């Protein structure tokens, strides 16, 4: 079980890392968020976006139902987004066929540490394959991803990897 898990993690890194490496996310670009309703609570340092929420920053985009941003020292420090499901996409405009899309119950983004937390029924898809897991943590700086399975009501749910061999062979 553990060796299969480690293998799955390795495959995940193999699948995702080259694609994302070629699509370095520019986190210095302006961040745009649109929603049906926005509530600022400056005393609590939070901004809540509700209803058809979309977030874009360069090649990165989210589509979620609700997004809450925490601020510290006048900067956004953490973003928590939920959806049914929450969807995301990395797409280099010059390499659209290598876009990475995914969905999960929630997306967390630690802006300072540049780490993405994808939780609850996570699916990541790319032309070369797909990964399903309970949780995936992706470090945008080191470009390392860790996938975790879940045990629910006694039933173990493994990390699942689907490979499109033809696509892998073409690389």
């Amino acid at each position, binding site marked *: 079980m553990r060796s299969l898990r480690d293998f799955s993690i390795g495959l995940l890194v193999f699948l995702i890392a080259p694609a994302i490496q070629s699509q370095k996310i520019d986190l210095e670009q302006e961040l745009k968020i649109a929603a049906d309703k926005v509530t*600022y609570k400056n005393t609590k340092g939070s901004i809540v976006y509700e209803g058809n929420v979309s977030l874009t920053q360069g090649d990165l985009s989210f589509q979620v139902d609700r997004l809450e941003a925490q601020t510290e020292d006048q900067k956004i420090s953490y973003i928590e987004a939920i959806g049914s499901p929450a969807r995301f996409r990395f797409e280099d405009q010059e390499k659209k066929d290598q876009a990475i899309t995914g969905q999960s119950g929630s997306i967390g983004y630690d802006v300072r540490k540049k780490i993405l937390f994808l939780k609850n029924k996570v699916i990541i898809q790319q032309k070369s394959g797909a990964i399903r897991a309970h949780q995936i943590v992706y470090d945008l700086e080191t470009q390392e991803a860790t996938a975790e399975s879940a045990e629910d009501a006694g039933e173990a749910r493994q990390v699942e990897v689907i490979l499109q061999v033809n696509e892998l062979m073409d690389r």
Partner: protein
Amino acid sequence: MKILKWGIVITMLAVFATAIIFSTQKLSGVVFSKDPSGKGINVSIDGINLREFDREGQLSYRLKTGKATWYPGRSLASFERLQLSIYREEEKEDSQSWEIDAEGAEIATQEGGNALIFQTSNLSLEQLLSTDTEIRLKGNVSLLAKRSGKTYIKFYGQDLTVHPKLKRLSTDQAISIEFKRMKTSAFGMDADLIEEHFVLFGDSRGQVETILYPKQRAKI
């Protein structure tokens, strides 16, 4: 009978004098006119340029307007081209200075109030703005809120309702806010500037959109 006779004469003289005064279109820069609804006599002046100081001699208000008109029959005062500055001592906890600029404004006055109390020499902004008075700003509006002499939030929009005492703003029209490093556009807003609690709405015209600028493009 004699008393009744004199009473009638005096009343007719008073009516006659009032008719002469109010039929004159201009009197020392003040214009009187009948309200089309038939309710009362409206009073207009060409403009206001007023500074008001507190008891310590510190400037607390500055008001500059174009034509100002009072409609006592409708309990309303309207102003063309309003510029209002509200200054507050920095030491006070909720101190905020405001600078307001609008193409026009309306203020609800006391019901049945005497329009003549708004003659420039008698106008008290402290008195007016310390009550539950709302100011309806018309046309293109800008409101800058400042602390320690620095602007910390800017509002730009159309038709903004302002409650100076409670530091509240609201609109159901297009509004744009620059706050910290964010610029937000919406189509409706309720804002509490003391609590710094803002709710913004989208509608059929579009969503609320926030743009967060990178560090090197800080707006405020």
